[in-house]
């Protein structure tokens, strides 16, 4: 990849030296989801002034962050556009690595955080740091509860009403089913913990813009409610055998097992297209089984309190050291256009970040209408992870103290993790 960039840069430099003005190259670093659509838009959004070239980032979010950060910390002028996981935006913006999104688009994004704009507020919220927009939401991901209708029926669960984790775990355990979550020692485990804590009305940390002086709040009733859910699942027969190393992909196979009634699974939006794509194929569901697949809002941590579904997705940022910042900003607007978002949803199953694009995806008939509506409300009413320049420390400290799920104890875990997180943030403890 470095060689490719070098060659591209040399070629661009060489040709520009010959007097050609149409050969500037904008490098767009993308994560490896929906690459075909990215390539199409890199092509379409290239103009007479510049060509957009797609450069692939590693698969894991942590590796993507590391690679981009190393380039940006070295003030790399060839990093023009980049796909960013929402939790990286505050870190990168605070470090001065991202160019602010200015003008009308910036205003629309800021406006959307208060529900007065085209962007879903949950998605717009992810790109705002200290009241300024530093990236453009491209797609907005969220988690919902996927389940087998037959299993819910056998358990006598009324899925038209909001369900709690306790109900779901009990329903699965009583009927030979299981509950799929992400509890390996990695970022997605923090996604789960954060959703549980927020679902009980609390937060892991607050006042995050204070940086290291952020207020650690996980040692609270909400933290204990979250720990109670994790303990309940770990102790239950509904826990999957690989609970402590379970990831997004590992519980997919438990939905339509050879034997057994299947599972309830919290997971991202890609699940629907994933199963639909393998109907009647080896390892995939039959048409009949696929029709048994249902979805509901993310389970509530506490009965009566609304759940806060996790929000993820990808935002596009412009590198602060880009040689062509105006062109890069223009290109970013083009590749996050409504049509690009619709294409990403229809071709790669990655849901849009604007209401208009959502309407179009809903009208396409590619997805059940109520599923699209569920995604939209989940993103809009979801709970973001803490927005902090020290997010990786917060995430790491939580992973260290809450893993493995079998070791979580509501009486001690929230308290211990709060003390450790405070020490880590104050620089008193190694992570």
């Amino acid at each position, binding site marked *: 990849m470095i060689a490719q960039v070098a060659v591209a840069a040399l070629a661009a430099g060489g040709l520009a030296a010959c007097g050609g003005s149409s050969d500037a190259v904008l490098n767009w670093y993308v994560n490896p989801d929906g690459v075909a659509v990215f390539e199409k838009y890199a092509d379409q959004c290239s103009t007479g002034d510049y060509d957009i070239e797609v450069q692939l980032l590693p698969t894991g979010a942590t590796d993507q962050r590391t690679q981009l950060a190393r380039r940006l910390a070295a003030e790399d002028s060839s990093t023009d556009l980049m796909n960013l996981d929402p939790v990286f935006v505050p870190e990168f913006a605070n470090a001065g690595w991202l160019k602010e999104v200015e003008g009308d688009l910036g205003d629309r994004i800021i406006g959307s955080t208060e529900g007065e704009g085209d962007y879903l507020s949950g998605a717009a919220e992810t790109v705002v740091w200290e009241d300024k927009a530093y990236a453009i939401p491209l797609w907005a991901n969220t988690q919902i509860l996927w389940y087998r209708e037959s299993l819910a029926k056998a358990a006598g669960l009324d899925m038209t009403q909001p369900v709690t984790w306790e109900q779901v775990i009990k329903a699965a355990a009583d009927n030979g089913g299981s509950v799929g979550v992400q509890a390996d*020692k990695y970022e997605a485990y923090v996604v789960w913990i954060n959703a549980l804590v927020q679902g009980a009305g609390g937060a892991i940390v607050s006042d995050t813009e204070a940086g290291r002086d952020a207020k650690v709040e996980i040692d609270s009733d909400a933290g204990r409610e979250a720990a109670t859910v994790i303990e309940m699942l770990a102790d239950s027969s509904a826990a999957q055998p690989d609970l402590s190393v379970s990831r997004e992909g590992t519980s997919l196979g438990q939905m339509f097992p050879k034997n057994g009634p299947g599972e309830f699974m919290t997971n991202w939006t890609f699940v629907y297209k994933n199963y639909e794509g393998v109907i009647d194929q080896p390892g995939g569901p039959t048409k009949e089984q696929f029709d048994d697949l249902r979805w509901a809002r993310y389970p509530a941590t506490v009965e009566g309190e609304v759940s806060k579904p996790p929000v993820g997705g990808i935002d596009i940022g412009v590198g602060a050291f880009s040689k062509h910042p105006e062109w890069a900003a223009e290109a970013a607007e083009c590749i996050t256009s409504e049509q690009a978002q619709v294409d990403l949803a229809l071709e790669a199953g990655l849901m849009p970040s604007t209401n208009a694009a959502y309407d179009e995806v809903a009208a396409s008939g590619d997805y059940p209408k109520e599923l699209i509506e569920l995604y939209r409300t989940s993103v809009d009413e979801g709970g973001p992870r803490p927005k902090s320049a020290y997010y990786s420390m917060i995430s*790491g400290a939580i992973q260290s103290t809450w893993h493995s799920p079998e070791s979580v104890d509501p009486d001690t875990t929230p308290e211990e993790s709060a003390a450790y997180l405070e020490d880590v943030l104050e620089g008193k403890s190694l*992570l």
Partner: protein
Amino acid sequence: MSAVAAPKSKPVMSDRARAENRLGQKLVAPAIVLMLLVTAFPMLRAIYLSTFDYALTAPEERAFIGLSNYLTALTDPLFWQTTGVTVLYMVVTVAVELVIGFIFAMVMHRVIFARGVIRTSILVPYGIITVVSGFAWQFAFSFQNGFINGWLPFVGDDFNWFGQTGSAVVAIMVSEIWKTTPFMSLLLLAGLAQVSDDMIEAAKVDGATWTQRLTKVILPNMRAAIMVAVLFRALDAYRIFDNIFVMTSGAVRTESISFLTYRQTIEQFQLGMGSALSVLLFLSVLVVAFLIVRLFRVDLAQARQG
């Protein structure tokens, strides 16, 4: 002849020797200056950075905190736990490699037929990139598709080597030993080649047994070579990183001190703490080197003659 026999007191130098010494110093001066520029700058910068509370993502909050980072690191149980694991990796792998490496060196030294093939096959693992061998051993130890569980009668087929500290550390050590034993044997082979055949012959004539020849003639005369081999491998093993990165990513407390430093600097962007840890790593490498040199009682200046 032997390095141990080197006189302790400084010999009186003749004028000519002194002049030669001065010329020698002048000749190496440019190289020393260049080396200082290349190596001293990053080291001094690391020392400077280690006195700050400095996260790359919060440049404005950078603050001078003196030696606090060192204090934090040295009083943190995690630091000592990773140091302990690192020392364990070093001691066990170097000890095992020394024995196996010596056997390999003897084989390579004495082999008469198919010499090229045997030497090459012993050296092959060293030619393989550490990350690649890490992956190979990770697959070998995997309970899903590996062969190790099938070969070992005392472990179950579904035993997860990477599930707990003890077995994960063993798996990492095995991959490290497999990878670097050839290097050890190569250094020992060089030492073995320096032992004069005349002395061995003389010992034989005097009626020494094979064991006596090994322990009284061969090994003492290889002391400098053994020290160099142990020193190089020990320092190398103390910096162990790749295998851990590939096989466990530092999970289940298999993290070495290099890995901890990497996580602080590259993953957490904590340049201050990361630099403090690198300085501590550097100092501990010096301590290890010092201890090994003392252990073998070899005068390094004389080692080349030994």
